[in-house]
């Protein structure tokens, strides 16, 4: 069990005294916070604040040097990424990390990997069980693409899509895992205004479906539009936490990140 206070409820995700160093650099220093089920929480801060490192620690890409991460009360810190993913934690990547040799649909179908069970022989011989599973996976992947408005581009190569649409494919791919917690790493970075509006709609739809979202983002109007709570990091430390209206006026946040003109 976790000792992090989450308003007396069992947290969905609890980060306790988590620290991560790279050589002599402290990317994260003794970070504590928790997420409850539902809603969108944003993680903001200047470049190098440790936001992406934290996502990598939560998803098992990095093992923390100190502290623990609990998901629904189960310790997941230090576990391999594929085990963490199978618990129901999905993510997107800042730089995409797409499977360029596959189509848009193929990318979305890879996200459904944990939903399948067929082994080498059923798949290689295309047995009925594997065929049925394949059809179900295709349907799920198409549904996820439909949600982000890209089902018509399903058979195109992902490398032919503009950045904004590629990022939406990243979300559709992560949805294939049927995540309970979705970590979005700078989904609005490099997107045009109309694409950001579409992203806001997608995030609200996902929250309505009961998915909890932890968002890392620099686009402040977007963050303010979708977040119920904001956590601010600076040089690996949490400097503020609260609702958007409170964060906007916090002098430490203004000094470290937002600036006077915001």
């Amino acid at each position, binding site marked *: 069990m976790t000792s992090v206070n989450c308003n007396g409820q069992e947290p969905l995700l609890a980060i306790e005294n988590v620290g991560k160093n790279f050589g002599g650099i402290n990317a994260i220093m003794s970070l504590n916070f928790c997420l409850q089920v539902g809603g969108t929480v944003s993680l903001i801060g200047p470049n190098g604040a440790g936001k992406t490192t934290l996502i990598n620690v939560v998803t098992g890409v990095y093992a923390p040097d100190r502290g623990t991460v609990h998901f629904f009360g189960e310790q997941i810190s230090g576990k391999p990424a594929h085990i963490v993913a199978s618990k129901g934690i999905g993510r997107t990547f800042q730089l995409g990390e797409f499977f360029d040799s596959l189509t848009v649909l193929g990318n979305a179908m890879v996200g459904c*990997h944990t939903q399948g069970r*067929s082994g080498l022989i059923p798949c*290689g011989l295309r047995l009925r069980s594997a065929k049925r599973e394949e059809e179900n996976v295709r349907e799920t992947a198409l549904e996820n693409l439909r949600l982000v408005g890209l089902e018509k581009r399903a058979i195109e190569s992902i490398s032919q899509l503009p950045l904004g649409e590629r990022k939406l494919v990243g979300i559709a791919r992560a949805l294939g895992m049927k995540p309970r917690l979705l970590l979005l790493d700078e989904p609005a970075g490099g997107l045009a205004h109309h694409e950001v509006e579409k992203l806001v709609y997608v995030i609200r739809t996902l929250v309505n479906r009961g998915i909890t979202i932890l968002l890392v983002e620099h686009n402040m109007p977007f963050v303010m539009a979708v977040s119920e709570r904001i956590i601010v990091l600076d040089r690996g430390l949490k400097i503020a936490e609260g609702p958007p209206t409170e964060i906007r006026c916090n002098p430490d946040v203004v000094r470290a990140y937002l600036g006077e003109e915001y």
Partner: protein
Amino acid sequence: MRPRKGNLSFLVLIAAIAMLPVLTSNSYVISIMCFVAIYGTLALGMGVLLEHAGIFSLAHPTWFGLGAYFAGIVAIRGIAPAWAGILIGAVCVGLIAYLIGAPLLRLKGYYLTCASFAVLLIFEITFAQFSSITGGHEGLMGIPRLTIGTIVFRKDIHYYYLSWGLCLACFCFLYNLMNSRIGRAIESLHDSEVASSCMGINVARFRLLTFILTAVMASLAGSVFCFYIRFTMPTIYGFALLLEVLTMIVIGGGKKLYGPLVGAFIMIWLRELLHGLMRRILPVMTSEVDAIFFGIAVIVILIFAPHGLSGSLAAFVNKYRRSA
């Protein structure tokens, strides 16, 4: 996911392969086509390993050689029926590939390439040094004809159907596999292992699975090869074979599953045609001049088809479809 097109082309190809011995009784053509199938099977597996899974292992000819030696030794010593030697070879090679692959595949990039190349050299030396079992440098001679029940494989045509049966079975298996959850997981390894693992894919497990599966396919091809030529020696499975298979993958293009098969066909026939031509023009030093002209031909192919012939063919078909 790759769109499922070309099923008709595949049926036409199967029909053409099945009809070839009916259309020509030329044993030279049949014999060369046997080698195309055997080397094609080897290149097919290595293409999946290199180009689809992104595992740059150079140990592949070793599995081919081990398959040949296991089948040959089982048949010569009468340990089991000759056909059973093929299966025994495949099982043993799968086990050896597991034992070697588990630690080897922890390495990445150049380190894996160097270590796997060491495996190739170690096995080549082992084949040569364990002369009491393998026949040493002179090789394993007197391998009996392959028999399955009452069927004795005496003629080229028997091996033609056996080798193409194996090749097409491996192709179909890999085709189905690459269009399934396992194939997508394998493809994803090539592009981003971090993203794969975050999608719930056990990267180490799928790397090892691909390594073992393609090793077993190489072993089956090696076993058929040894029964066909009824002889085997260590130098066959060394650096020269590695270069040939890599050239087949590069010429054919590894991104398409059928690319290495196209590469095997082009390379083997090109070499034969050049050899026939050079023998008439330059009766002395034919093989040396062969190699020069063969190298030039490969360079010319790669200038005009930098992604291999299958890549260029796919690009041409896409362009034609868009303009139509």
